[in-house]
C-alpha cells in the first residue's frame, strides 16, 4: 500500500498532465476496498475489480492503465477526464447517473449490517443504534434514506476506519456492502452479521463520462464476451467461490 501511494504522491509533483494518447484506456479504482480493489505491499493494484478490468481490456484488445484514486474524488476525476472509466464496485444510482453514465452491470451487490456477535441489535432496532459507514457509499446513502439525516450515522473517509471504530466498540454497527463485509467478518472473531443481507436491487456498473457511446458499447460487448467464455466466472470463483453476477 504505502510504496505505491508515496510514488503516486511524488509523481503528482509534475505539472498538469494532458490526456494520454487515445489508444490507452485509463481506468480508475479506489485501491482501499478489499477484496474488490486494494494495493499490495509491493504497490500493485489487485482484486476482483482489477481482474475484471484487465479481462475486459484483453477482450477489447486495448492497452489499459489502472490507477488508484480516492473515493471522494473518483467521480469528479472521471468528469474532468483524468481517466476514462471507473471500475471500482460503484453502484448504479440515479444521483450518480446525473453526473456520469454506466455500462451494463457486472455484478449484483447487497448490503449487510456488521456488529459484534453478542449484540442485541436487530435490523428492526437499527434506528436506535449508531451506524457507521463510509462517506458517499451506497451503504451510507441507504442508512440516510432509511433512517433520515438525524439518525446517529457516523461517516468515515474509508471502510477500514469505520471497521476500526466498530472493533474498538465506538460505533454499534457498520453498514457495508455484503461481500467486503463477509471478508472482514471472516477475519475478525466476535463479529457477525445482523440479520440477512439486504437486497436493495443494487447493480454494480462501470462508470464512464456522459455521451461516450462508443466506449459504452465496447465495454458492454466485452462484458458479454467474458460472461459467455467463462473468464468472468473463473475470476469470481477465484475470489468468492461463487459466481456473483
Amino acid at each position, binding site marked *: 500500500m504505502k510504496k505505491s501511494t508515496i510514488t503516486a504522491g511524488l509523481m503528482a509533483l509534475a505539472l498538469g498532465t494532458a490526456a494520454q494518447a487515445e489508444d490507452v484506456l485509463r481506468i480508475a479504482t479506489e485501491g482501499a476496498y478489499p477484496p474488490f480493489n486494494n494495493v499490495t505491499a509491493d504497490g500493485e493494484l489487485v482484486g476482483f475489480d482489477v481482474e475484471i478490468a484487465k479481462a475486459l481490456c484483453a477482450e477489447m484488445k486495448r492497452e489499459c492503465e489502472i490507477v488508484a484514486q480516492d473515493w*471522494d474524488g473518483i*467521480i469528479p476525476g472521471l468528469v474532468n477526464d483524468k481517466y476514462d472509466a471507473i471500475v471500482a464496485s460503484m453502484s448504479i444510482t440515479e444521483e450518480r447517473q446525473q453526473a456520469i453514465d454506466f455500462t451494463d452491470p457486472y455484478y449484483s451487490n447487497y448490503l449487510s449490517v456488521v456488529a459484534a456477535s453478542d449484540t442485541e441489535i436487530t435490523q428492526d432496532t437499527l434506528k436506535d443504534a449508531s451506524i457507521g459507514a463510509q*462517506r458517499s457509499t451506497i451503504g*451510507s446513502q441507504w442508512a440516510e434514506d432509511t433512517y433520515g439525516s*438525524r439518525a446517529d450515522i457516523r461517516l468515515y473517509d474509508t471502510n477500514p476506519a469505520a471497521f476500526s471504530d466498530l472493533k474498538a*466498540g465506538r460505533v454499534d454497527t457498520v453498514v457495508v456492502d455484503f461481500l467486503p463485509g463477509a471478508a472482514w467478518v471472516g477475519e475478525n472473531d466476535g463479529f457477525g452479521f445482523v440479520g440477512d443481507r439486504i437486497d436493495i436491487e443494487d447493480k454494480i456498473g462501470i462508470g464512464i463520462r456522459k455521451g461516450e457511446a462508443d466506449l459504452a458499447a465496447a465495454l458492454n460487448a466485452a462484458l458479454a464476451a467474458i460472461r459467455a467464455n467463462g473468464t468472468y466466472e473463473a475470476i469470481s470463483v477465484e475470489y468468492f467461490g461463487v459466481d456473483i453476477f
Partner: protein
Amino acid sequence: MYQEFKYLISDSVCAGLSPLSGDLFGKACPRFIDGFLVTIELLVLACGIGFFLAIGLTLARMSGRRPLAWPATALVYVFRGTPLLVQLWIIYFGFGSLGEDILGPILWSFFKNPWLVGLLVLTLNTSAYVSEIFRGGLANVDRGQLEAALSIGMPWLRAMRRIMLPQAIRIAWPAYGNELVLMMKGSALISTITVLDLMGQTRTVFARNFDLTTYLYAAILYLVLAGLITAFVNTIERRMQLSAGR
C-alpha cells in the same frame, strides 16, 4: 428533548427560508442548519470553558512554582506547536483505538463519544492560544501595580485576579477576538472525527450531489458566524472602554 428543540429550530428556519432558497439549498437546508447549530454549540462551550482554563493556565505559568508552571507551559507549548488536526487524530483515532479494556469504563465512556472528544480538543487548543494572548497582555500592564498590591498585603492570586488580569484582558481583547474567529474556522476539522458539524453536513451533501455550490452555501453560513463573533467581540470591547473611562 434538547435535541428535538434544536431540530425544531432548524426546521422552522428552513420553512421560513423555503420561499427564498433555491432548489439545492432547499433540499439540504435542514442538514446545513443542524450542522450550523452543532458548530455554534461546540464553539460556545469550547470558547467558554477555554477562556477560564486559559486564565488558570496563565496564572499557573506565572506563579513561579515549578510543579504548577511546568505542566502548564508544556501544555501550551505542545498545543501551539502542533496542528489541530493532528491533536484531534491523536486523541480520537489514537487514544480511542486503545478501547475499553485499556482505558477503563469511565474514560471509555468519554472517548466513545466523538462530540465530547472534539469538545475536549477544541477547548485545550483554544485555551493554549488564549493563555499566550493573556500573557502578552499581562506583559503590557505596569508591574508596579502588582508590586503595590503585594506591598499592601494583598495575596498574589487575588492581586493577579483583581488588578492585573482585568487590565491584561482588556489590552488583549482584540487579539482574543481574532482567536475566536480562528477557533471557529478550526472547528471545521472535527468533521474528520465523524462529528456532523456544519462542515461534516456539507461534505455529506457534497458527497451526493458533487455540486460546488454546496460549499458556497457553507461558506456563507460560516461568514455569518464570523460576523456574529465579530459583533459580539466589538460589543464587549465598547463596554470595557466605557467602564474603563468611568
